């Protein structure tokens, strides 16, 4: 067994593990595991309905954003 193989084995396995760890840390940081019960139950309620709901909220935010932009333009100095 040459040194190269050992370095490769240790390097690759540690890197893969580290990727998993980074993913987990990211999940914790963004609050995905804050609510244990919801985390488990959400699988039951997941479906087309939830997706539509999310889209609706997104659109609401977009609409407000646009409205705000328009308002700002109206008050702003003419270009």
């Amino acid at each position, binding site marked *: 067994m040459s040194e190269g193989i050992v*370095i490769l084995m*240790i*390097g690759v396995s540690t890197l893969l593990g580290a990727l998993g760890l980074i993913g*987990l840390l990211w999940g914790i940081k963004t609050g995905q595991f804050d609510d244990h*019960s919801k985390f488990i139950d959400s699988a039951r309620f997941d479906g087309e309905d939830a997706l539509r709901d999310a889209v609706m*909220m997104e659109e609401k935010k977009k609409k407000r954003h646009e409205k*705000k932009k328009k308002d700002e333009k109206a008050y702003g100095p003419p270009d």
Partner: protein
Amino acid sequence: MADCTCTHCNLTFDESVMINEEHNGQTLHFCCRGCQGVYHLLEDEGLGTFYEKLGDTKLQPPSALEGDLEKFDLEGFEKRYVTVHDDGLHEINLIIEGIHCSACVWLNEKVLHKLEGVMEATINYTNNKAKVIWDPEEVKLSKIIETIRSIGYNAYPYDPKLQEERAVKTRKSYYMRILVAVFGSMNIMWLAVAHYAGYFGGIEQSFKDILNVAEFILATPVLFYSGWIFFRGAYYGYKNKTVNMDTLVASGALSAYIYSIYAMVTQRGEVYFDSVTMIITFVLVGKYLEVLSKKHAVDTLDHIIGSTPTEVTTIKEGVKSLVGVDNVIIGDIIELKPGEKVVIDGILTRGAASFDESSLTGENEPVYKEQGDEILSGSICLDSTIHYEAKKDASSSLLTSIVNLLEESITKKPRIEQLANTVSGYFSTVILIIALLTFAGWFYATGSFEQALIIGISVIVIACPCALGLATPMASLVGISMSAKRNILFKEATFLETMAKSRLLALDKTGTITEGKPSVQTERVLEAFDFSLLYSLVNTSSHPVSKGILAHLESKHEKLESYQLEDIKTIQAKGVEASYHGKKLTGGNAAFMQASGITVDEQSEYTLFYFAIDDRLVARYELSDTIREGAAEAVGMIREMGIRVVMLTGDNEQSAKRVAEAVGISEFYARLLPDEKAKKIDQFHEEGEIVVMAGDGINDTIALASSDIAIAMGNGADVAISVSDVVLLDESPMSIYESYRLSRRTFRAVKENLGFSLMYNVVAVPLAVAGFVNPLVAALSMSLSSLVVVGNSMRIKTLKFKKDK
């Protein structure tokens, strides 16, 4: 008569009392108008799938909550609870009441999402807290609250800035640090296996270098990211001129790390990266367990503050107006409606009503108050609208002072110095000094700086605090899991040690020594009668005495029918009256009987309940609060351990004396208000005692918070449980005895562990000083010492209680 379940809330009722309705060819049953309303609202909104998600979970029927909505739009309210984002959006944190399952969370989020102007709504199922972000130009906060109420839930605002945010943040940061530490140490472990194999079987230097570098890469984030907490702790310790456990861990890990880098670069000696990560990981996990348990205390305090009204209705010259509690001045007339909580102390001026004072005295029986009686904040008006005059302003009223006291005592809770901390303080100082002297000595003797440095560091490495660091956490962990198996929950590991040192136990009477509800002691039937009549009569009242009679009848008789009674009248503080097929039924106390011209035998030290049919006395019951099973035995056994037992109660002297005598307590204090109980605890502190207090009610909370160890009963008030350190799930007084035994046994194990690890150091450190330490000795002795500590801690499991024999 068939039982069927309500379509909305799933509670089971008799079919005859349900509201039946034809809907789309199906018959629907509702237990009340509230359920019916919510059902149709959900159907109309297209949210009928809620019921599929709900399954068999039972809900609370929605109660009609009206009025006080306008307070949510008041400026004072907004200033206190609402945060305004930069882009003009408002944010509030709410506690949602009535959530039973994830379907409820789904429903609440769904209706909020549907509401125009709501930008974000997330609800945490675990603690029922919600965060709502909305656009104030499109929707008002009162509308949001109204929407939540319309589907049968209620929402309180709370201020998350108080403590919660910080608690959550520390918890998260610890968790992430542990994950990194565990990842690092697990990977280093399998590299270390190769290392040790190489040490015995021979290994080429080139492979050793590869392993060294890999271990170095893994150990670095563990030491500096996960171990950051210890460096910070050591720094604070340095600023306060104390040497603590953190100093030892930080200096031990850091010197081992530096030594290992030196060994790696010079290709001489062995590396100790594995011990670096192990120390950090083990001690960090112990610390995390403490942080984890601290979070709960915060949740329910928010609940009390949130449910306190912020506005009251005052009457000035006949005009009613809603005034913020802070603006009420002494002498104002305040109107109080049924179900409202009193926030300002005063004197009743018009009307009469019963008050629930259980949060102040711990007694469940409502207190009847008439004109001229004092009204205390924290009590709840039960049955009628009254007027009273404010005698104090909001900030000096009882309720506010209780909440303030509580906040104060939680933060000021006495901390008993932990043995391990004291020992490690001296230990690390001594080791650091020895290491320095060794370095100086070798440098002077040999003149070689390099050799002196290596030996000096090896002293710190061999004195590695592994065994010492594990001594307390390991024993506590076994102690805690043992107690959890016996339905005793210790919230923090350190409480075991504090409890073991205690020599004084303070007990609350109602709910702790006794059951907390009246039950029938003697039954005297004067004339034969249909027990179903009495059953139906007491069923109409929610008074604790009625409930006691109800429970007694249910346990004694099998076939009891619930009759449809008419003209049901509840006379406050006296009894209930009703008629059935022309028969007049009366049940109540002696005064009530005398009012209907019945002479009764009043000789008894217990609470009396009489039952009369058509003004003829047919039965007499004596009720009293029963003492919990095994209470006397438990008190006796605790006293045998040399512990002084006292009883603190809000009840009168007579009943206090009776209970105290029955369980064998010679020292008791009666008629204590919540803050007086806490003062008693402080008094014990001044006498130099470490106080363990057991209680269950809101009235015990301050005393619980100011005691060294607070024990709460599993069904006690939420606040009592949250401020307590130990929770007894089976509510048995015997568990108090068991927790004493367990904590003392665990503390003994801690002392043994500390003794052993010190002994190990007495042998190993001189060897290191003399320069005899080679890697084999270091590796073996390190793992051996840790194993001994773990093994010794496991011995706690052999502890036997008398009951098991």
